[in-house]
């Protein structure tokens, strides 16, 4: 029995060591990515609680597949991809809730945009318009303008062809210009 106990003891030590490593990695990942991921989720969803929840869920998912995750070539891209997928799921659920509520008359009245010249209000109006875009256009626009990602990078994250990204961005921009008008976007409405 003694050797067996010794083996069990060493496994416990090994497990504790792994936990410590994982904690260290988690801290490093938090410092490196937490703010940018929750910023992205918040801009996508307009819901701070949901944004924080989603980012925590993404880290939990990454931890549960730690062996794969820690070996991933680009852990940050992997985390971002999880956050993007979770945001899209959340948007789909919200859309279903909205449709169900519409049938039962339970949706709150939509807020009408109020245009004025104040810079912050302009940002709010642009943001509100972005969140009215269809899911795929919205995610392409936010990745492009908030995250400064190129079209091929967006295609990689969303696993869609680059041509589709281009068309989604083009349609998204056209819709924004139509909704917000030339004055607000500082150019010709497309």
């Amino acid at each position, binding site marked *: 029995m003694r050797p067996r106990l010794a083996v069990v003891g060493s496994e416990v030590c090994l497990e504790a060591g792994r936990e410590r490593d994982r904690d260290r990695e*988690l*801290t490093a990942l*938090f410092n490196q990515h*937490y*703010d940018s991921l*929750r*910023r*992205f989720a*918040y*801009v996508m969803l307009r819901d*701070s609680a949901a944004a*924080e929840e989603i980012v*925590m*869920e993404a*880290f*939990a*998912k990454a*931890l*549960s*597949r*730690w*062996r*794969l995750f820690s*070996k991933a*070539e680009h852990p940050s891209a992997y985390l971002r991809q999880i956050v993007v997928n979770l945001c899209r799921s959340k948007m789909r659920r919200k859309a279903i809730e909205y449709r169900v509520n519409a049938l039962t008359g339970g949706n709150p009245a939509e807020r009408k945009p109020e245009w004025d010249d104040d810079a*912050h209000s*302009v*940002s*709010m*109006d*642009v*943001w509100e318009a*972005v969140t009215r875009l269809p899911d795929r256009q919205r995610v392409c*626009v*936010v990745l492009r*303008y*908030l995250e*400064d990602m190129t079209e091929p990078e967006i*295609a*990689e994250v969303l*696993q*869609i*062809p*680059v041509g*589709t990204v281009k068309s989604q961005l083009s349609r998204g*921009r056209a819709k*924004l*210009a139509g909704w917000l008008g030339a004055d*607000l*976007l*500082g*150019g010709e409405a497309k």
Partner: protein
Amino acid sequence: VNEDERIERALKSIGDSYVRDNPANFPAFREGVLRRQRRRRWFQAGSAVALAGATVAIGLFFAQSAPLDNSEPVSPAGRNAARAITDTVKVGDTPGQINVGRNAIWVTSKSGTVTRIDPATKVPTHIPVDGIPTDLAVGGSGVWVANEGNLQRVPLTGDGKVTSYPIADSTRMHVSVAPGTVWVVAPGAGVFRFYPEDGTKEAFDAGPSPADIAVGDGILWALDLSGRIQGYDVRTGRTVGDAIDVPTGSGAEITLGSDALWYGVKGDSVFMRIDLVTNAKRSIRLPSDYVDMGVGQDEVWVLMEGTADAGSFAAADPATGRLEGDLHYVEGSPVDVAVGKQALWIVNATDDRAVRIQKDLLED
């Protein structure tokens, strides 16, 4: 200031304000993440118990009205496959795909090597290849390795010259071998037919955005990103039968075997058998997320996620797709499985090793 800059400025202003006004709180975040992780584990354990209960209940129900099936339902509790492992072989760093064929076992690794394992001695030979391999197929005059743009032929003996052929600019090419032809799908660029005899290639029209292909019996099956599978006659290029809708093409793969097309989605628990004659689909909800599949002579094996420290696998009934027998656990993070006559080979990303699992020992 143009339109693009205004959108960028607006979104960044909103996002930055949010981050500035809501400072990060690491202890709360850590607690939240760990709580979710615990919840996931409980949920998985609860699901396993519920599944076991439901399986027993359904089994008891049918036992009274129908003759017993030879196959037993998967036990979510699972069994450790360690006792069936007969060999462990070191392969290249961060292995990706494994395949069995032409009297050897072949493993790619992201460090840019293909490892040939001699099945008799289990001695590995590491063969350098260009770039990061994205797929591997064995057949014809060699072992075919795709990377980000090229198709490479590795000699079957493992000691000759590796020849590289440019195909298309694409990051995730997949390769499939048919008699006299090697087929390559390059997402974003299309499908290509490559002729090994003279090293030439030609484009093959297989729909707007093919993501994976499987070739057999003169038909090329193409799965596109929107989740549509269409068969094409490889001689005429004409479509064969109706398109088959599946949940998604993103992260999904298809394989031919046992008169069926098999469909799995990485990171999802969906697995599907599609009958090639009737196009009938049968979905199987896996006990864990799908990782990969291995198709052999009248047998199909599904590799899945398992626990935090182990992957799992089970056999699927080739006729119905239903998982049968025990769920087996294998330590580490298995990433791919290949099926040999007497053994399964599973490649593990945790310790960069391939393990040989003797099939008949799994049944003990």
